[in-house]
């Protein structure tokens, strides 16, 4: 029972980590970055490179953030910026980008599964139940990301500007905010966070050029339901992640895999705003 509860909480945490970058971009830019999976993959390969160079595996985290942000800057300038007025085409163009990134990684590293050094291993004892230390660490990481994002949004000028753009972009522009720069920086933070999430995923999944794809749809659906609110994202992760764990445990892991997508679609059918008012 306790294991189930921990599974639910840590699954929600992992989903939150994986979706946070996508939400940041969607919330401010109103663009779905369908190359999200590719950035998770890029992050995971940063861990592979770090391991290959014999460096401390924790160094992969800052490396991935920087790599993700730099690639994100290029993407925003070259691909996303011309498509702000065509959001459906932006989905397609970023999907095309993910094909390119996936093939580049394949050309460089081959299509085989890569192994990375585990960041944390073993289990800890919680009230007599042995539980994966790394999954607990993921919970902490999700909290750190959540608090970090909240701090940026609520406590910094950049966050205030981003919120202003989310609420009323025309007014933000009229007041002289540099909306182009804020979009660029937001996109970089989003892709940086996503690559970071890719590193955090490495102990949980195998690393191969298509690993990000498995996470894309789940993250996409959660973000659709969450709108532009990180609080709503946390709620969605807890509810739908919990449902996924329960379905996987008691019915079938395969059906568990579609729980999030189906529930999100139904929630959106009932209310097009999803959980964004939470």
């Amino acid at each position, binding site marked *: 029972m306790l294991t189930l509860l921990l599974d639910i909480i840590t699954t929600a945490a992992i989903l939150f980590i994986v979706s946070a970058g996508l939400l940041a971009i969607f919330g401010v830019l109103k663009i779905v970055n369908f190359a999200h999976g590719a950035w998770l993959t890029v992050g995971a390969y940063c861990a592979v490179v770090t391991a290959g160079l014999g460096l401390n595996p924790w160094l992969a985290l800052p490396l991935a953030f920087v790599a993700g942000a730099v690639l994100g800057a290029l993407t925003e300038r070259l691909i996303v910026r*011309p*498509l702000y007025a065509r959001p459906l085409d932006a989905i397609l163009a970023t999907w*095309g980008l993910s094909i390119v990134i996936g093939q580049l990684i394949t050309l460089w590293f081959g299509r085989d599964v890569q192994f990375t050094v585990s960041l944390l291993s073993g289990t800890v004892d919680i009230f007599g139940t042995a539980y994966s230390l790394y999954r607990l660490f993921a919970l902490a990481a999700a909290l750190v990301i959540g608090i970090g994002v909240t701090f940026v949004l609520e406590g910094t000028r950049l966050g205030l500007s981003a919120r202003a753009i989310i609420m009323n972009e025309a007014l933000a522009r009229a007041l002289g905010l540099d909306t182009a720069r804020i979009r660029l920086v937001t996109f970089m933070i989003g892709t940086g966070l996503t690559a970071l999430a890719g590193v955090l995923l490495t102990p949980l999944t195998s690393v191969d050029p298509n690993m990000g*794809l498995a996470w894309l749809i789940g993250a996409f659906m959660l973000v659709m339901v969450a709108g532009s609110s990180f609080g709503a994202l946390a709620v969605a992760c807890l509810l739908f992640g919990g449902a996924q764990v329960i379905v996987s445990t008691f019915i079938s892991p395969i059906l568990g895999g579609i729980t999030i997508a*189906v529930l*999100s679609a139904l929630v959106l059918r009932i209310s097009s705003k999803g959980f964004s008012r939470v």
Partner: protein
Amino acid sequence: MSDTLTASPRPFAQRRALILGGLAVAALALVLLGPLFLDRFSLNVLTRSMIYAILAITLDLLWGFTGILTFGQAAFFGIGAYATAMLLTHVGSSPALIGGALVLAILVPMILGIAVGWLSFYYGSTPIYATVISLVFPIVVTQLVYSGGTLTGSSSGLVGYMGLPFGLEGFFRLSGLCLVLVAIGALVFVRSDAGRVLTAIRDNETRCAYLGLNTQRIKIVLTTVLAGVAGLAGFLYANASGVVAPENTGFVFGTELVVWTALGGRGTILGPILGTIGIDYLSANLSGELPFLWQLIIGALFVVMIIFLPNGLAALVARFTRRGRNEVVTGGGPTLTVSAATHHTQQGGGPLLSISKLEKSYGSHKVLEDITLDVAPGELVSLVGPNGAGKTTMMRCLTDGKERSGGTVRIAGQDIAGMTPDRIVALGVGRKFQVASVFESLTVADCLRMARSALDTPSCIATAHDLGLPQAAVEILQLTGLDRLLATEVSLLSHGQKQSLELAMVVSLEPRLILLDEPTAGLTKAERTTIGGILRKLTAEMGFAAILVEHDLDFVRDISSRIVVLHQGRLVLDGSVDEVVNSEIVKTIYSGGENA
């Protein structure tokens, strides 16, 4: 309007039919004779490519023509393939069962198509939501296949069933024949009057709804029919390849279809066919030597294409070959005829429009409050008041039964509570929007035909040679000179011409009540005078009722039979032109002294 050219419609249509016939014969010859000079590998690959091309056509109709970006066609295809393979594997194989498999492969996707359509398209649904559903659907289908155990063969799929007893050449010819038939069907349909409705929905769905078309139902029917076609392709695939696998149902396959369609050129039918066959065939040939580089090139090309050439390679070709698309065409098009009124001929007693205690609020903020008003046939009522007085909100409440928060609105005695715009249009209400709301990529004649399609059901195969419109609409066209521009694409018209065209479209609905939101915004003095004359004639002589929201008070004074003043959501004055113009309240409101 520098380039004008004259076209005569009949030879043009005939030439097009000839070209289409020639293409069909050539394509048929290719698919029938192909096996004589193609090697086994090419036959195999091209059979598959042609089946995929059928799918690309269905995607093009949905996305290129109607504007619905979907990844779901792959799932309908997979369901058709699995229905075939499962029946033949688990029940057995006989000619009757193969026939049964064909029926199942088409029917099951269609039934699911209704479900997906119902989920995706409802009043107020967004394009992105339909795309979301189209992503979820293939994922669900794939997971169900994985969890199907021996029934679906799980991850290894189904193989070894006995399908149609054709050889390699036979399947090549069968697939090719099906492709040619589907392609001809699609080409004929999109050029027919009914096919233009799809483009109209893509251009301006709101306008379609306000022309009395139930766009959601049209999109559901389209999804359903095309799900059946995708199922047919699945049936062919299951027979020709002898194996079905979970990948055939998946979201990734759905995205590949989108890539092929986009590269070939959405909205052209032929582009996606050639794109699909070309890329799939090249992929099969090149993936041996340049496995990942090839995918990389396709991906990069796709990105560049989406950004710089969103209409694909076909757009490049069309830029050099297409005539009459980017020029103003004088003359040509269908023949204008005056049709007798078919609609709303009986006139009931009582007021045409009766508003009682109408209220609209957002949260605690009341935009409209306690509005009571009757309008009778022949009246031209102007609605005036400062910004934020609630004029446009009131127009919305009269044309969308879900808008208001309280009170009743009756049109010809019928309460419109909960009605969607298309049903209110059917009661005899036409609405002209503030910014000319027309269909940019259709011709003038097609726009007018669209306005008639709720009354005269359009043909699915032909383009009518006559265009029957009510007397009033024909007069508007003649007064504004639009009757000579019937074959011209609307995007080439001036702003004033678009405003007049929209008015003609609204009048073509044979409404009893016309609502006009700033019909003269951005028009020149001469254009205003023309529109004003038309409005006076429509109401005073022809017995239409009209409600006009207008800022140009000189214009209002000239043409109104009655003026209603709104201020801060309330009706403060309702009277004749003289009464209102000389009233103290209006002077106060407009000089900003006291607040009412």
